[in-house]
Structures are given as C-alpha cells and as structure tokens.
C-alpha cells in the first residue's frame, strides 16, 4: 500500500479508532491521516458511518478506543472550553446545511462572528458580504432559509463555515441530492476555497465522480474497515473487488445486493410465521 502520507504533516490523525452503535460495529480499529492543505475524501456506501466519523473528529461523539489528534490536540482529552476553542478553527458543512431557520441568510453567516467576536456591526457586514461573495450568493442575503434551494443552502452554509477563517472544513455528503449544475458549483467551490484559503478539507461522500475529481487522497471504507486508499488514480486502478464495485457502481459484488436473509426458497415455503 502507498504510504505517502506521513503523520508529521497531517492536521488530523485518526489512530486505531473503534466505535459502535448498539451492537453494530461502525469502525473497527481504523487509522486515517489527513494531510495539511490537501483534500482528503472518505468514501463508502451509505450507512458506513461516514457522518459519525466527522462527529468523532469534531468531538461530538466519543470513541470506544483509539485517539483522534487534530492539530496536535487529542480531541477527546480536551476540556470543554479547549474543545470549543478548537472547534472555532474547524468548519463543518452539514448535509442539510443546518442553517438556523429563524434567521435570514445574512444573519446566518454573521452568526459565528457575532457569537465569537466583538467586532462592530459595520465590520461584520463587510466580512459577511465577502464570504457571501465567495460563494456567489451576495444577492441572496435577505432570503430566509426556507426560500433557498438545497444547493444554495449548502453554499450559504459553506459561507458560514468559513466565516471564522478556519484551518479545516469537513464536508458531510456535499453533493448528495444536487442537480448537476449545483454539483459542479460545489466541486468548484470546494477546490478553489481549499487553494485560496489554504484549508485542509475532509470530504465524506459516496459520489464517486465529483469526489475523485477534486480529492488528493481517498480512503474507501466498508464495514468499519479501510478497504482501499490512495490517490484517485491509484483507487481507480485498485485490484480490490470491493473498491472496483464501489467505483463502478455494480449492483452485486463483494457488497451484496440482498440484505442478509435465510434461503429464498426455504423462506417462501415456510409457514409464514413471524421470526
């Protein structure tokens, strides 16, 4: 396996992480490195706990085992105030955008600035307009979140995520449910923001094409394990059946089409009692 990512240069480092929800093991002793200034993608089918991983990195959930180091801090050992200070430097883009529904676009983007800084209102206005300009939605500042399309909401949320000029942004399924134009806009935005603001980006996604187009490094996760990793090119040429199935979208393969069940014929011929 390629091991070009050296821990010394990584901003986020996940080491021997295990996490389960109920009886289901979501992560089983996985280790991931996220290099500074790069776009790293976590890919895998729905339900593999990709969002959970982001919440673990953000310190919202606690792992059963293993450590997560963000910029030299062990996230789950921090005191509450330290964790909050760290979070100010981490942006996160939620799948739904998670805009506050009782505020308009402008106030949403201004929200972190108003909460964490004591800047005068005129300066907040300038900053907010700059961030909105960066995502191309300066004209939408007076709309309410329920008047926005899904793609617009995500771009606003992105403007909000970069409001405090964070060192990194975590994107939770940024492309899901978007039309091709919105997807294209987001791909372009993520890439250019990463370059211009020299951010570190973590993308969690199952949209193969869009992600492969911008990621510098990809981890493919399935059933709590890393089944493949490398640059997009390496992943494409991976010999793993699993990775191939995921990248090409074949219906059946190592990941089965059918949910585990007893034998089909037996099931049909049985008495129909509930089991």
């Amino acid at each position: 396996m390629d091991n070009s990512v050296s821990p010394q240069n990584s901003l986020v480092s996940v080491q021997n992480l295990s996490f389960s929800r109920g009886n289901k093991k979501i992560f089983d002793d996985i280790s991931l490195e996220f290099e500074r200034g790069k776009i790293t993608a976590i890919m895998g089918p729905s339900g593999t706990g990709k969002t959970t991983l982001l919440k673990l990195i953000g310190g919202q959930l606690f792992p059963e085992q293993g450590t997560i180091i963000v910029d030299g801090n062990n996230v789950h050992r921090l005191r509450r105030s330290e964790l909050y200070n760290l979070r100010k430097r981490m942006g996160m883009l939620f799948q739904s955008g998670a805009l506050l529904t009782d505020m308009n676009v402008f106030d949403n983007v201004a929200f972190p600035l108003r909460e964490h800084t004591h800047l005068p209102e005129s300066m907040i206005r300038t900053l907010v307009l700059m961030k909105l300009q960066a995502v191309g939605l300066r004209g939408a500042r007076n709309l309410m979140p329920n008047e926005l399309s899904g793609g617009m909401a995500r771009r606003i949320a992105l403007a909000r995520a970069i409001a405090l000029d964070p060192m990194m942004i975590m994107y939770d399924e940024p492309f899901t449910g978007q039309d091709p134009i919105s997807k294209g806009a987001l791909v372009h935005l993520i890439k250019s923001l990463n370059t211009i603001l020299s951010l570190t980006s973590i993308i969690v996604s199952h949209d193969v094409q869009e992600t492969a187009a911008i990621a510098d490094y990809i981890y493919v996760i399935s059933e709590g394990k890393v089944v493949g990793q490398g640059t997009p090119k390496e992943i494409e040429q991976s010999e793993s059946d699993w990775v191939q199935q995921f990248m090409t979208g074949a219906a059946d393969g190592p990941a089965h089409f059918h949910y585990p069940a007893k034998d089909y014929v037996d099931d049909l011929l049985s008495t129909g009692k509930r089991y």
Partner: protein
Amino acid sequence: MQHTSTQDTFVGLFVAAGIVGLFFLALQVSNLSSFTEQDSYTVTARFENSGGLKVKSPVSAAGVKIGKVSAISFDPKTYESVVQLSIDSQYNTLPDDTTASVFTAGLLGEQYVNLDAGGSDEFLKNGGQIEITQSAIILEKALGQFLFKSAEEKK
C-alpha cells in the same frame, strides 16, 4: 430576528399588561391595601374563651376595622386565651378601660374582636393590656343554658 422593534413593543406591552394584572390582583382583589400595616401597636387581651377567633381576624371599633389579631396563645397557668391585637397607630386614643369582646358577624359569619371605648383619660399604649373582656358566645353553651332555664321554669 427581523422587525425586532415591533417585537419589542409587543413584549413591552405584554410585560406591562402582566404587571398591571398582578397589581390589580394585589390592590383591587386582595386586602393588600389594609395589609400594608403602616404602623401599628400591640395590646393584649385575655379571654376566658376566644372561640373561633383566628390570627388575622379583624379588630373593629363601632363597626370600623381598626386592626387585626396578630397572635393567639393559651396561658397554661390561668387557663386563658391570650390574644394579641395589632391596632393601627392612627387610632392611638383608645381609653385604657376599653372593653374587648369576641363577636360573630351575623349568625354563621366569622368571628372578630369588638372594642368598646370606656371613659378613662389614660390611653392604651403599645404592650398594654385590655382588662375587661367578654368571651365568645359558644352557641352550644348558650343553647344548653336556654334549655336548662326553660326546663326549670316549667317546674
């Protein structure tokens, strides 16, 4: 977050209305106006039986409320009921031979202390004592006496 100034006006109106409601309850509905005991002085009256008198029962003179009962206790030596009367200090010219009686407002009404002024030149002072008292009329006792008497008369 928009229209905050109209919102503020409504909140202000709401709070003002609520406070007006509270004041209404305090002043118009309850006895706060008489509760504000500006200044009062306390005198003691000893009754053989204070009947159904309670703390806060009214004290009145000539039908006008001038104070209230502030404490009732039992004296285990004299077997009397010791009643503290707290009287508004504007009524500080009650003679020291005033009579205190426990009356009932109407047939079944609540009991109160009635003060009948005497003729002395000395006035009651704080901590003073009313010497002449008349106990509550206990309905059962009165009835019993009445029956007893009428039975005797028939003999």
